[in-house]
């Protein structure tokens, strides 16, 4: 098809050709084409088949208001062809067709529409019940939109940004642009959101004069240029608003162009004040077969020619309800479209300057007439016009019918923010009332028609937003208000809803194939509220989100309903206002984790790294998954563990001890200098949440550790539980400031004494002691003798910046003993042999301190401390109905260890295995389990179920703990 060339309004670059593959064939277009305009220019009229009836559907709007032009692009279904720019080499396929859109083998469904009334899905196939699965399978196969292959991968980068602004303006038409300029002139930070790829709104494509010598499109571009030059206006084009929340939080998503680093990005804006200038869309005209390809809205036909240089057809009929329609007819006639006639649903009220211009072009004008029926089996062939009473009829041959009942404002953002929509009898619009504070509406959505008044109302809203930001512009505002009062106010709009029709295919909603007959049926069944009718018929629930059905549905219901006091009220709008890819919400997946100061050494030593909460930690350093060599090295020689992820805290101040007494279950007054003290924390239910050691560094100054998982929450926890007390203490999280090396094994002392400046003999530095040393006279080390792995061991805390040095020094000092790393797997087995618990492994959220056998840590006589969990610990002290932690061995020592988490069964589930491993020290498997009280006695048999055990339960027996070195000699060496 020949393109119109040389129009000043064009947004395509005819010099650069692009091509796409559609339905297996190659089609050519020009740069700036959308998939829809390229295909339309190449003669495509049927873009898809409808959801239920498989009726042919074509280009109707250009802003994605219905699923008519949804296609599959590069294996991504449901892509709206109307706002997707063509990229070279795109592969486009039609969807929901068996065959091609032209010849769809499912087209017979249209003939069966009598069998598919509204709600048939719920009412027909549920009896007998066995019919339902069959029916569902067939319905799902025939109905729907595109289909997504489960292994398709979305290409491109999906980003997110969170800008803040003083004033955020939604819609860059004349009102929005004027508002932006008014706010920017006051040096405020302005964000302007526009869903189309360029600024200008309904000025952008019109050649009518704004002022003598200044056509509207030029005025639009003039305003746009001013905006682009303002440094304090951030413009987001091709950005659709999807949500509008309290405190002026606006969410939107932007489609990237080829120059952008993202395919789509989520934009979340927090603004002090918001101006909504979203303008109007066209309200579809309801008549028989109003969905035939070839029927389109005024803006669609007009912009197709003016913006993309494509004439909609050869011969057109107009059936419109707004001056924009007459203006489009005149303009399109001058561009070469033959126009058979223009029918206006308004009997009077059109701009008196327009009919003479039609007459001058020999275009018949029919005020008070409307399209009643479109003819043509697949695409439009002719149309029947009628007068409003339906008595006189006349047929016109045409391939294009430009149809629209009038305009309707785009109120989605305002409705989401909490405004109520009221029907206005003058404009025929649903106008917003009760707009929240610091939010303003402007422009054509208020019913204004005069271009100067629209610009001025934008300026007024912009100034009011400026006032919201605390600037004194009251006098300017009054001036603009007076000026605006002199200009024409809201114009009387068309209230026409439905043509006098006889057939059964007058569609209120294209997406869901809902006809006015379906609405009538719902009302006959007793549904009288639009919300319920919407749900029963599913009108407006498709991807267009009420773009087509939104305002016609309540108007039709009100018109048809007999009750005289029924006010039309649109259905509730919810985010997202337009369909958005989930990938855009998800954004880029940044796999972030923390690394310890000796991460590189761990990796270099062959560490198998894994994610443990926020950290990367070494699971093991040998190929053997049981880490046998590492375990035996610790038991017989000396090993080193990077334990830097432990939570480390300093708490100091006059009330520090009170705070510790509040959260730790034991008597923290016994914490003294030079010694480590083990204790645990519980929540209000007495459930154990953390354990660790504490020592006193100086007066009112303590150092304590928490488990890795609690490091992030401990400060918050202590402050929360002292929030009513106004105590004087400070807590500092030193987790990242200190690294930790656990030097463990019988030879640990021999290694340590080579590098530190103090005595480390058992007398000078006994078990549970705390000492401060200097290593090589330069590195300050906090050393504590603990026994988590059950051998002589020194836990060395060192400032993170020295951590790598200390690690290297110890490795060098230990070389003569063949010192070696050990990882989490070895530590897990080592501590299991000692019966030491890891909270989270041997406990879950409901496990109390009593349940894991650590109840003796609870100091019952410090009532005044109001220790968190003490009340519950007292109340559950003698509760026999709870799970208890026990140690077990297999009845057959040759059996393997059960898997962690396996249930323990006896008729029903009686508990579960927490951790079980083969113990190389004991040469048999050992484990810990949480079991019901009656199973907790020594020598009781436990029967363990595993998923694939085929009825063969594993048999174990309860034994006392610790399994290894029960008297604890080795850690006191």
């Amino acid at each position, binding site marked *: 098809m020949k393109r119109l060339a040389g129009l000043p309004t064009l947004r395509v670059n005819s010099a650069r050709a692009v091509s796409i593959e559609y339905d297996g064939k190659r089609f050519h277009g020009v740069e700036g084409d959308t998939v829809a305009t390229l295909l339309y220019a190449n003669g495509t009229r049927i873009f898809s088949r409808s959801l239920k009836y498989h009726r042919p559907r074509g280009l109707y709007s250009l802003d994605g208001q219905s699923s008519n032009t949804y296609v599959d692009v590069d294996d991504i279904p449901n892509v709206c062809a109307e706002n997707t720019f063509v990229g070279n080499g795109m592969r486009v396929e039609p969807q929901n067709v068996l065959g091609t859109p032209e010849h769809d083998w499912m087209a017979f469904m249209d003939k069966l529409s009598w069998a598919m009334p509204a709600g048939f899905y719920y009412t027909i196939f549920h009896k007998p019940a066995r019919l339902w699965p069959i029916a569902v399978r067939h319905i799902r196969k025939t109905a729907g939109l595109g289909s997504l292959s489960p292994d398709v991968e979305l290409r491109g980068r999906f980003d997110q940004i969170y800008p803040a602004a003083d004033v955020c303006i939604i819609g860059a038409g004349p009102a929005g642009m004027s508002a932006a300029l008014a706010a920017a002139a006051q040096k405020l930070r302005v964000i302007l959101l526009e869903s189309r790829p360029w600024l200008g709104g309904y000025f952008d494509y019109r050649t009518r004069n704004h002022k003598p010598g200044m056509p509207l499109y030029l005025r639009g571009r003039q305003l746009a240029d001013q905006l682009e030059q303002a440094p304090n206006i951030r413009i987001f084009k091709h950005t659709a608003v999807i949500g509008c*929340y*309290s*405190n002026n*939080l606006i969410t939107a998503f932007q489609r990237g162009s080829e120059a952008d680093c993202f395919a789509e990005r989520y934009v979340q804006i*927090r603004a002090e004040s918001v101006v909504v200038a979203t303008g109007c869309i066209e309200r579809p005209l309801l008549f028989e077969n109003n969905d035939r390809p070839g029927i389109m809205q005024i803006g669609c036909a007009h912009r197709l020619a003016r913006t993309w240089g494509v004439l909609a057809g050869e011969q057109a009929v107009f059936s419109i309800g707004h001056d924009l329609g007459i203006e489009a007819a005149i303009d399109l006639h001058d561009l070469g479209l033959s126009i058979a006639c223009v029918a206006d649903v308004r009997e009077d009220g059109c701009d008196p300057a327009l009919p003479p211009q039609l007459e001058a072009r020999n275009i018949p004008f029919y005020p008070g007439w409307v399209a009643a029926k479109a003819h043509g089996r697949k695409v439009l062939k002719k149309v029947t016009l009628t007068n409003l009473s339906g008595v006189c009829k006349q047929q016109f041959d045409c391939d294009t019918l430009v149809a629209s009942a009038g305009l309707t404002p785009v109120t989605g953002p305002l409705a989401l923010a*909490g405004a109520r929509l009221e029907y206005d009898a003058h404009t025929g619009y649903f106008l917003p009332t009760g707009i929240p504070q610091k939010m303003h509406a402007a422009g054509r959505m208020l019913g204004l028609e005069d271009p100067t008044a629209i610009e001025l109302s934008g300026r007024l809203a912009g100034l009011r937003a400026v006032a919201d930001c605390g600037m004194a512009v009251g006098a300017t505002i009054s001036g603009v208000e007076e000026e605006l009062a002199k200009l024409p106010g809201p114009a009387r709009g068309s209230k026409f809803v439905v043509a006098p029709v006889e057939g059964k295919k007058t569609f209120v909603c294209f997406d869901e194939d809902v006809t006015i007959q379906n609405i009538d049926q719902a009302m006959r069944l007793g549904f009288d509220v639009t919300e319920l009718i919407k749900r029963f018929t599913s009108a407006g629930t498709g991807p267009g989100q009420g773009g087509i059905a939104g305002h016609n549905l309540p108007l039709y219901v009100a018109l048809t309903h007999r009750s005289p006091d029924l006010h039309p009220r649109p259905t509730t709008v919810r985010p997202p206002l337009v369909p958005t890819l989930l990938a855009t919400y998800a954004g880029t997946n940044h796999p972030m984790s923390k690394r310890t100061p000796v991460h590189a050494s761990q990796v270099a030593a062959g560490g198998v790294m894994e994610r443990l909460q926020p950290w990367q930690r070494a699971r093991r350093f040998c190929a053997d998954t049981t880490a046998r060599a590492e375990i035996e090295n610790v038991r017989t020689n000396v090993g080193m563990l990077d334990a830097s992820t432990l939570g480390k805290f300093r708490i100091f101040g006059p009330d520090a001890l009170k705070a510790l007494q509040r959260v730790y279950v034991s008597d923290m007054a016994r914490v003294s200098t030079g010694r480590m003290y083990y204790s645990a924390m519980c929540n*209000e*239910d007495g459930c154990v949440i953390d354990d660790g050691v504490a020592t006193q560094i100086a007066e009112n100054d303590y150092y304590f550790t928490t488990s890795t998982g609690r490091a992030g929450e401990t*400060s*918050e926890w202590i*402050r*929360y539980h002292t*929030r*009513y007390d106004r105590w004087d203490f400070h807590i500092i999280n030193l987790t990242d400031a200190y690294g930790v090396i656990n030097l463990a094994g019988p030879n640990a002392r021999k290694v340590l004494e080579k590098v530190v400046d103090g005595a480390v003999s058992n007398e000078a530095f006994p078990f549970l002691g705390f000492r401060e040393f200097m290593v090589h006279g330069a590195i300050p080390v906090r050393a504590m003798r603990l026994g988590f792995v059950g051998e002589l061991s020194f836990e060395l805390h060192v400032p993170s910046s020295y951590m790598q040095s200390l690690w290297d020094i110890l490795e060098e000092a230990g070389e003569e003993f063949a010192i070696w790393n050990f990882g989490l797997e070895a530590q897990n087995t080592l501590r299991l042999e000692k019966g030491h618990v890891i909270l989270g492994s041997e406990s879950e959220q409901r496990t109390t301190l009593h349940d894991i056998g650590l109840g003796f840590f609870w100091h019952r006589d410090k*009532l005044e401390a*109001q220790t968190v969990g*003490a*009340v*519950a610990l*007292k*109340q559950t002290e003698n509760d026999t109905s709870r799970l208890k932690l026990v140690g077990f061995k297999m009845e057959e020592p040759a059996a393997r260890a059960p898997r962690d988490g396996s249930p323990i069964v006896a008729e029903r589930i009686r508990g579960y295995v927490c951790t079980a491993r083969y113990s190389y020290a004991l040469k048999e498997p050992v484990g810990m389990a949480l079991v019901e009280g009656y199973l907790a006695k020594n020598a009781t048999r436990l029967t363990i179920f595993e998923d694939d055990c085929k009825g063969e339960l594993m048999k174990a027996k309860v034994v006392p703990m610790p399994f290894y070195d029960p008297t604890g000699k080795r850690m006191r060496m």
Partner: protein
Amino acid sequence: MALTITCPICGKRSGYEFRFGGEDKGPPPQAAGLTPAAWCDYVHRNNCVAGVQKEWWCHRQGCGTWFSIYRDTTKNLEVAGPQSEDV
């Protein structure tokens, strides 16, 4: 999250920076003579006011302070508290 919260130290910030700490139910009751049911009520029972309620928040990604605000739960907006504490 559309909620904004005014931290007494850092000022008005996005709700994402804060952690919810529950309704303000006052300090815990004294342990002496406390029944399990009464304790459970204190810990787990909430008033779930549809309207303005006083509640605790922690400026987790900021200064770390716990403080209380008044929030209208029906609009999810921070509101000015009542003039007198006994309201």
